[in-house]
């Protein structure tokens, strides 16, 4: 009989702490599948974020570093420059990448740093109790926008990925989602491409993953997925934004 499904070698066989329906566990798995398929587990060094994925290194079976909130791309830069032939990726939430670490991600992309960035956009700060993120939609209720995000008070959702695509240093930027099986397959292909780019020394690649947060969206896992295709993609359309 042919085996059609198994746990990736790079993913440890342990239960995760993620809430039911959270996109982080899916994204973790996709990254591990890609690393296995590319045969780079022993050459990979990850930089884990501050946020819900703070203990990603408990689940990933390769070398990992912690980073201070938002400084993830700087730590990745330091590692990559010391080991230019290793595969270095940073994993960041929208608080990490689009708020406290905005300067760091812009300059890392602009330097054309040959790293891979996986950017999980769940539109909230999950770990600290579901506060507004830069990517929170207009009108969306969070613990710090109890009446809904108000443009006059809170500004607009930040399309950081489109912004990064403007930079000559960024090579490949794509937005994907993990809300449906077919989108999961596309997400994996994008992640694979972002890693392959690094192997081929093509430069900075980033994959933004629209990811459900049932807990802080106040929705069931199924409705959280429906919210991505129904609302979120209007502000954050899926697809390749740049492939230079």
């Amino acid at each position, binding site marked *: 009989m042919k085996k059609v499904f198994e746990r990736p070698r790079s993913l440890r066989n342990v239960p995760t702490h993620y809430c039911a329906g959270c996109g982080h566990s899916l994204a973790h798995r996709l990254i591990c599948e890609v690393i296995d398929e590319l045969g780079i*587990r022993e050459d990979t*060094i990850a930089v884990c974020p501050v946020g819900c994925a703070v203990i990603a290194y408990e689940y990933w079976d390769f*070398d990992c570093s912690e980073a201070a909130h938002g400084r993830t791309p700087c*730590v990745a830069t330091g590692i990559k420059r010391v080991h230019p032939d290793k595969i270095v990726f940073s994993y960041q939430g929208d608080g990490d990448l689009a708020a406290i670490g905005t300067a760091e991600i812009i300059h890392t992309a602009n330097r054309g740093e040959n790293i891979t960035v996986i950017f999980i956009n769940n539109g909230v700060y999950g770990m600290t109790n579901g506060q507004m993120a830069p990517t929170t939609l207009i009108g969306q209720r969070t613990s710090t926008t109890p009446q809904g995000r108000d443009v006059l008070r809170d500004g607009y959702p930040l399309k950081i990925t489109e912004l990064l695509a403007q930079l000559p240093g960024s090579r490949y930027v794509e937005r994907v989602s993990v809300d449906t099986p077919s989108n999961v397959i596309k997400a994996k292909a994008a992640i694979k491409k972002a890693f392959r780019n690094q192997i081929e020394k093509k430069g900075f690649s980033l994959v933004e993953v629209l990811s459900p947060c049932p807990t802080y969206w106040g929705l069931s896992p199924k409705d959280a997925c429906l919210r991505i295709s129904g609302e979120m993609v209007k502000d954050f359309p899926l697809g390749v934004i740049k492939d230079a």
Partner: protein
Amino acid sequence: MAKIMMCGNEVIGEAAVHAGCTFYSGYPITPQNELTQYMASRMTESGGTFIQAESELAAINMVFGAAAAGARAMTSSSSPGISLKQEGISYLAACQLPAVIVNMMRGGPGLGNIAPSQADYFQATRGGGHGDYRTIVLAPSAVEEAWHLTHLAFDLADEYRNPVLILGDGILGQMMEPIEVVRKHLHGKMANHDMRHKPWALTGCKGRKPNVIRSLYLGEGELEELNRLLQMKYSMVKSKEVRFESLYTEDSDLVVVAYGTTSRIVRSAISKARQERLHVGMLRPVTLWPFPEAELQKLANKARAFLVVEMSAGQMVDDVKLSVLGKKPIHFYGRAGGGIPTEAALLDIIRDILRPRSRNRVRV
């Protein structure tokens, strides 16, 4: 052996390359720009990495990554920039990563000015960032000494897996002094620092279990255990790495305690005072942390009084007090905000303490 004229900032840069530093990232700030500029050309020449970061935050976190990857890494800045680096320094200490951080202090608080100062003493010796941690702090007083202490800084950082600070000021950084070095070492290719002795470093997990660099410990008692281990390490550093210089302390009624640039002014005031047969000497801490407590305790049994001189409103004076434990009076003279103590002012104070007249004295 040839003597060459170099400024302190450049000498620290050259010594770093010579010590096997292969990674430097920094952000410009006066009075340490010569160091950043020096590293820009030397790192490129010697096959290392130089990055002009977008901020001090970025610079120290790049150093964090490079250190985690096993390289000898350095960054430098001056006071306002060091405040920003404190985030990274706390993480380096928590993750037990070796790195060298140079602070050429300037007048503060705030933007302050670019004059020499020693007002970051508390920040340097008390940890500076959040949490229970210490950094080893080396305070050179001359360009030649900066050469040796930079080598020492990298060695101590690796040995204890801890950040090490080199604390100087604008005078040390920018003044030129002759330094005796083996000429062939200068501008040569650096010795590639051996990473094999860093089994904890992130190099890809080929042939071993994955390494994790982390400071997050959520399990019951885990973080307390890390802190216990850190404190044990700091006790070891305290017992083994205290360094200081004494001048005439054997027969001194008055011991002046000063470090870095200030100690040079004290030195010349003391030699004038000695000509007047005043029994005055100096204790110059070379390591500000660990502080030469035991030596001061010993001196407290012999000397009549202490005088602390600093380019600050009085920060090291706390450590001197904690060492002398109330046994003898402690006087303080300081200039804050970029003022520099003069030899004449010091001589006056020394005379006044040793041959008391009616004048009011500063006593703390």
